[in-house]
């Protein structure tokens, strides 16, 4: 048997699209920081691309899709990290799934960084990320998509309560967004607020960058959602792959129909969420903002992620407008409760992730409450959402505290004033010398880099 080549072409495209989402996120986030912090913000995303790729190839794939650590077929918590360590001796047909899946691990880790902008040691971040994906992301991926504890597999959580209700998370509402959002919240509580939070002006320094990021995220998200199609996809196992198919009319019909619907739903929810966010702003502040539009786009994409295969286009618009409006309100909470979720990872990803994951219980055309499907799906969705929050919260807390009392998370207050880009990376982002050079441009001279010569020598 063999994977259909049309499907394969789309998975290759999708993997590349999702890979692009992380640089996109770097701009979405980077534009929102102050100009003295933009490089560090972007480096948290790029750093994640580097380190997560390495650990994913070494043990991430094995922990996510290897046979269950507690015995194959068990609906367990994570896969055996050594079984497919370093991707040695995996079936050649699986590489393409590794490609697609590793991009999800990268962006999930990168999403977290938005909560802790401007104040965290880069070295601590680069240690946090591999540990966090190992303890929080890979297990949740295994549980939801690897036939583990949150899938429909017999022995899984929901199977204790229901016979034939399968939890739905098409492309990562729990594994990606609730997971990242919860981690962000915990980190903020452990690490604390930026100097001047709630007093000083901390406005976005480059909103067009944020719009660019939103555009690239939207574009890449088609890979994220539509690429999660699984031959004879049964809800909740999206992303699981490698299954072999004869190219056949029946497969093609399934492929064309499902991917088309997922694409349209993703777009419908995103557009509606943008309008929802703008509407809240128009009513509350009198003006719809471009930052709001960009944020609404992301809120909509987050909300539709788990639901994109289960809703109708109109249902997707309903989900989107709700997610956009709720998130627009939610981002205000941090000033109320005084936690410095700097770029609103909680307000956008946790909140919209919950709206999407639980919204399925209402809007799923098959068995949603509004479609006469009763409460069971709603309960199941709530169960996996809550479990994901707990898992992510607990493990993030453990790691965050461990690092706090060892490497330490924060740069000093003076360094925050000076600017983390210079402090942590020895750079500043911009030098807009006027045509003939500004004083700062001209000021100072090259110290012919002796150190590097030293290395050359």
């Amino acid at each position, binding site marked *: 048997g063999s994977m259909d080549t049309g499907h394969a072409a789309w998975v290759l495209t999708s993997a590349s699209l999702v890979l692009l989402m992380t640089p996109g996120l770097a701009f979405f986030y980077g534009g929102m920081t102050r100009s003295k912090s933009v490089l560090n913000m972007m480096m948290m995303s790029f750093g994640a691309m580097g380190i997560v790729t390495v650990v994913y190839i070494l043990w991430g794939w094995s922990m996510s899709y290897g046979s269950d650590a507690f015995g194959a077929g068990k609906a367990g918590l994570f896969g055996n990290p050594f079984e497919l360590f370093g991707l040695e001796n995996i079936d050649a047909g699986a590489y393409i799934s590794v490609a697609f899946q590793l991009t999800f691990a990268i962006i999930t880790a990168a999403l977290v960084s938005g909560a802790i902008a401007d104040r965290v040691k880069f070295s601590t971040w680069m240690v946090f990320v591999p540990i966090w994906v190992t303890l929080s992301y890979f297990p949740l991926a295994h549980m939801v998509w690897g036939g583990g504890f949150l899938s429909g597999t017999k022995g899984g959580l929901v199977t204790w309560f229901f016979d034939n209700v399968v939890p739905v998370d098409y492309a990562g509402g729990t594994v990606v967004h609730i997971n990242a959002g919860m981690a962000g919240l915990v980190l903020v509580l452990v690490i604390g607020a930026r100097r001047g939070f709630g007093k000083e002006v901390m406005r*976005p320094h480059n909103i067009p960058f944020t719009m660019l990021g939103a555009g690239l995220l939207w574009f890449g998200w088609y890979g994220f959602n539509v690429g999660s199609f699984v031959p004879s996809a049964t809800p909740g196992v999206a992303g699981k792959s490698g299954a072999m198919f004869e190219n056949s009319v029946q497969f093609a019909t399934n492929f064309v129909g499902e991917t088309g619907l997922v694409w349209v739903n993703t777009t419908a929810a995103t557009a509606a969420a943008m309008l929802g966010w703008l509407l809240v702003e128009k009513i509350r*502040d009198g003006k719809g903002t471009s930052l*709001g539009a960009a944020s609404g786009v992301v809120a909509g994409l987050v909300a539709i992620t788990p639901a994109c295969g289960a809703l109708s286009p109109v249902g997707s618009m309903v989900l989107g407008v709700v997610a956009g409006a709720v998130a627009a309100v939610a981002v*205000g909470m941090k000033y109320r409760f005084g936690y410095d979720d700097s770029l609103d990872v909680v307000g956008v990803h946790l909140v919209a992730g919950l709206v999407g994951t639980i919204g399925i219980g209402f809007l799923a055309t098959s068995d949603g409450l509004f479609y006469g499907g009763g409460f069971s799906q709603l309960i199941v969705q709530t169960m996996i959402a809550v479990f994901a929050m707990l898992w992510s919260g607990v493990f993030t807390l453990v790691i965050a505290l461990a690092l706090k009392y060892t490497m330490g998370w924060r740069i000093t207050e003076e360094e925050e004033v000076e600017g983390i880009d210079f402090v942590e990376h020895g750079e500043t982002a911009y030098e807009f010398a006027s045509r003939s050079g500004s004083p700062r441009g001209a000021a100072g001279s090259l110290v012919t880099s002796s150190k590097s010569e030293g290395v050359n020598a």
Partner: protein
Amino acid sequence: MKLVTAVIKPHKWEEVREALETFGVTGMTVTEVSGYGRQKGHTEVYRGAEYDIALVPKIRIEIVVDEADTDDVVGIIVKTAQTGRIGDGKVWVAPVESAVRVRTGERDEAAL
């Protein structure tokens, strides 16, 4: 000689320049500055967080002038830059003891 310093609204700059040129002012130095005063800044909103921006963009013009022209120059600036609305700015005059044209080393009046 005197140094005339004027802080005006940016969109008035072009008119002021023309008026001064017609009068015969051959040179000046211009700086983008921020003003603080009766004219309040505005409020920007980012993700529901409102910020009061206290400062207002202004243009600062420096002109070293011959003693005799001082009042005319000040008068021209005030006349041209005036909109009658708060925030039109200020003009002040300070003494200058000497001036040099870098290119030639010419001094004082000759340097202008």
